[in-house]
């Protein structure tokens, strides 16, 4: 069965610092991977997605993620965070088996100290 693990429930960084949020997946097929962000009192919004090709994908607001098949990972990065990046970030795996299925990680809550 497929699964997504986000090992860090909470991350705190200072404004201007770099960021990495970790995501590990388990799936025997070809993974399609997404990062969604949930700002306070809002629904989730797509940050970026990876289907194939260049393992480094760019997203909105300066975010990028790197896919690694050997490590079964899809880590999210940002070079310099802003206080407005404080939110919950979800890693999501799309699999195919008798139809499409999305599996969400448990989320990482990011707090950026101003």
């Amino acid at each position, binding site marked *: 069965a497929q699964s997504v693990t986000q090992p860090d429930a909470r991350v705190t960084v200072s404004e201007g610092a770099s960021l990495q949020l970790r995501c590990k997946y388990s799936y025997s097929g070809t993974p399609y991977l997404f990062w969604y962000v949930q700002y306070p009192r*809002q*629904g*989730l919004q797509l940050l970026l997605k990876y289907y194939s090709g260049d393992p480094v994908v760019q997203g909105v607001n300066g975010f990028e993620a790197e896919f690694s098949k050997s490590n079964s990972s899809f880590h999210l990065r940002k070079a310099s965070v802003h206080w407005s990046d404080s939110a919950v970030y979800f890693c999501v795996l799309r699999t195919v088996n008798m139809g499409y299925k*999305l599996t*969400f990680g*448990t989320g990482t809550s990011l707090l950026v100290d101003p």
Partner: protein
Amino acid sequence: EAAVTQSPRNKVTVTGGNVTLSCRQTNSHNYMYWYRQDTGHGLRLIHYSYGAGNLQIGDVPDGYKATRTTQEDFFLLLELASPSQTSLYFCASSDMGGAETLYFGSGTRLTVL
């Protein structure tokens, strides 16, 4: 950009109560979804639909019914609410069934006393 509107924003009911959560989307997306969000579980799919009159079972359907009355409107029904259904509920839509980009509403927080 697609807009998904949920109502009510907050709801409190008692055990055994009857609750309907509403969701309306613009842009004529074919697929609509109901998720619940609980700490430690991420989002879990309750029901989804690929068109008016269609309903598909998700991963955690027990205790929930859903109905898609039009292309725009998708309802989640809890006919005998239980405290275990206290949660944050999200509706989402997408144009295609390949789980392309999902567009989420702002959520309904349901408390069952």
